[in-house]
């Protein structure tokens, strides 16, 4: 995606949020968007292939489904009369294969919004993510779940081989 297209998208989002689609407002949005892009130009990712967009969409689909599931599950836990016996909270260190800040951010956010898990702390060398689990089954199962599920998908979205 080049800067021009991104500016147009940002102008559109600006018009969406401010609620008026007049020419002046769109121009203002484009100006603000371009200023933001100018500040962030060093961090903008290189162009993405169409396949990566498809991977991103599949990741979003998986994510929305998991989010609904997690809300239902946590809701089911808190209405139980014997809630405290059901809980098995634990903080587990999950070794990370993803390296870049963007990948770690995406993965941590996905973990937080999926069933039973919450990202807490990232170790200073970015090699481990400490995940809080509300009902722990086993450490190995949790780590395997994250590595085979979301981490794999995140790597797919960000890899440039496609």
């Amino acid at each position, binding site marked *: 995606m080049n800067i021009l297209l991104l500016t147009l998208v940002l102008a559109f*989002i600006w018009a*969406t*949020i401010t*609620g*008026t*689609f007049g020419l002046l407002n769109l121009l203002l949005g484009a100006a603000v968007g371009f200023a933001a892009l100018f500040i962030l130009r060093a961090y903008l990712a290189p162009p993405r292939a169409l396949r990566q967009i498809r991977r991103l969409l599949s990741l979003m689909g998986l994510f929305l489904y998991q*989010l*609904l599931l*997690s*809300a239902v599950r*946590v*809701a089911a*836990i*808190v*209405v139980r009369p014997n*809630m*405290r016996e059901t*809980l*098995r*909270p*634990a*903080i*587990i*260190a999950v070794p990370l294969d993803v390296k870049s800040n963007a990948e770690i951010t995406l993965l*941590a*956010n*996905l973990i*937080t*919004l999926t069933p*039973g898990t*919450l*990202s*807490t*702390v*990232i*170790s200073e060398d970015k090699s*481990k993510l*400490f995940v*809080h689990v*509300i009902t*722990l089954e086993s*450490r190995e199962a949790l780590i395997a779940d994250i590595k085979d599920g979301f981490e794999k998908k995140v790597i797919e979205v960000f890899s440039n081989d496609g």
Partner: protein
Amino acid sequence: MIVIIQYLAAALILVGSIFALLASIGVLRLPDLYTRMHAASKAGAVGAGFILIAIALLSNDIPIILRALAGFFFLLLTTPVSAHLLAQASWRAGYKPAASTVINDLDAEIQSHS
């Protein structure tokens, strides 16, 4: 058709409010901040999200629909960040997880740092 959309939106508002209610019950009942963030971030986000989608369905106004959907998107984008920051800040501040916590790998981390 309009009636169907209205019933759908009403159902979404109802389900969304129930999720929001359960999220607040969770915040009250769960033992520590880390477990509470589970309830607040997941059930809370889904509850508010359902209500925003209902607003998008009910209003026949394109800017309002777009803003409701943008709100939904930004809600999903920002909720996990604030939950993560709260959890990280409370750990940094020395807030210990509840005694019922079975495994705490962070304890080992603290020892290796000091």
